[in-house]
């Protein structure tokens, strides 16, 4: 077998994922610069309409490129992508900024007080720290519309629970290790949850079923019960309540 190499990997590199996909890997770290390159490459490929590419999937540090080998062979696509990587700058097109209203605590955010105690902070200080940070959508994955966010303040980094909970509601705002999340569908999770948003990240009946995409910038805005109830009702009526900002 000649596949084993113990030499450190050089980035960017392109790895085969079978006969119909390859991964363009930009680094082996989670950071904003890497994510920016991934998102920029995804945008360039969409704009270039490279023959045979059927789908691209941006993730933290790599871009998965699906292709149809009847239209382009993997070795040829690898050469094309390497050329694109060398020739073009890694600048992202204008990012979208969204403000996500969140109700801290409550049933869905049941870990808020315990987390504040763990961090030796007051509940309000924790909320202020979480709500003042600037986040970036690194990846949509795991479940439809599920947003993995980077940008969580280091003091709020918290290991996952030893025993996952069976059901966490859609819209739950979570912390898992150094990552933050906005959950999109109900399901089990070992993350800690401190808040919920009335916004639906995934609604298959909506014209745009997915609220967020990789590269979006996110800020949270703390809301009270009354506004949450108002937004819940508006969302239930199918009214658009998202707040997009341009900067």
């Amino acid at each position: 077998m000649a596949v084993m190499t113990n030499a450190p990997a050089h980035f960017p590199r392109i790895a085969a994922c079978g006969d119909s996909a390859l991964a363009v890997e930009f680094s082996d770290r989670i950071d904003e610069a890497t994510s920016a390159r991934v998102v920029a490459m995804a945008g360039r490929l969409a704009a270039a309409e490279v023959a045979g590419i059927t789908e691209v999937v941006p993730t933290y540090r790599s871009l998965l490129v699906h292709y149809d080998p009847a239209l382009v062979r993997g070795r040829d696509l690898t050469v094309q992508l390497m050329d694109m990587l060398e020739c073009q700058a890694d600048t992202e097109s204008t990012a979208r900024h969204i403000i996500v209203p969140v109700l801290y605590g409550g049933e869905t955010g049941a870990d808020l007080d315990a987390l504040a105690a763990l961090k030796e902070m007051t509940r309000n200080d924790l909320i202020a720290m979480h709500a003042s940070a600037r986040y970036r959508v690194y990846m949509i994955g795991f479940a439809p519309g599920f947003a993995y966010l980077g940008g969580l303040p280091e003091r709020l980094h918290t290991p996952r629970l030893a025993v996952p909970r069976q059901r966490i509601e859609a819209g739950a705002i979570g912390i898992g290790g150094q990552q933050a999340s906005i959950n999109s569908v109900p399901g089990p999770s070992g993350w800690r949850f401190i808040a919920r948003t009335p916004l639906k990240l995934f609604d298959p009946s909506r014209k745009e079923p997915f609220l967020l995409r990789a590269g979006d910038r996110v800020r949270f805005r703390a809301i009270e019960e009354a506004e949450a109830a108002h937004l819940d009702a508006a969302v239930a009526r199918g009214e658009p309540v998202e707040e997009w900002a341009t900067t």
Partner: protein
Amino acid sequence: MMTVQDLGRVGLSRFGVSGAGPMDPPSLRMANRLVGNAESDAGLEFAQVGGTFVVDAPVRFAVTGASVGMTIDGKPVHAWESHHLLPGQTLRIGAVVNAVWGYLAISGGIDTPPVLGARTTHLRTGLGGFDGRRLAAGDGLPLGASGHAPLLALRQPLARPRGPFRIVPGPQADHFDASAWKIFLEEPFRIATHRDRMAQMLDGPAISAFAGHDIISDGTVAGSIQVPSSGRPIVLMAERQTTGGYPKIATVASVDLPRMAQAMTGSFVHFRVITRDEAEDLLLDQSRVLASALSGLEEKDKTTETAETETTSGRSNT
């Protein structure tokens, strides 16, 4: 275990939506063609046992995939060819015997509302198909409109690959050292009972990733072979998650993935490395062979109908 499946929900992986679709796509495509449907129409996928079906309008149907015994009003009929089913008749599809997944196509296709562009059921997220769930006794399924078409039969069995399962190393092949690769390629692995539409676990010697069993989550494909810290490989199947955090030692060649899905629980598999070029060639060859089989279906005429009856009565005499 029966679900509505079409060829899958494509193009939405970047939004976290699994492609889902059938575990054995060539069998669903063939079943559809046998009844005069488009290959992309929705049919029913089942494991263990088929079930009992009645219709309120005349239809053509065909069963493919695993071998099953089936009858119309008690009279045995063959798989891999289409038959009429009339109101008042009862179709019984028995237990799956030599494989795992069977397919039932009905003329007009299952006409449940498409969700995100497809009728495939993704059970984990309750998306698509019949209310996003597996079918239960008593469910009534809407059928699409269908015109007249001849009854068709596949005369040459669909060619299935044999021998070791072909894999293309990577994308995290270099997380595993020579001794891990030696075990992976030389030892047999057993198809574990822990299997579903999402993933196939393999029992066998543990495989250790010297670079660790956690990676920064990245994209997966159907056929990705993940190795978590237990050292037991997991092959991702049709209903896979779009991203995963375990190193992927290799990817099963697309041509061998339906065979993995259909491999009997407890059977042994070996892996053999091929190049990406070879895997692509195999896939293109298989596409041509399948296209030829799909377009070469024969019309069942009176002669074959008679032959079928004789065969049937011959069996009942022994």
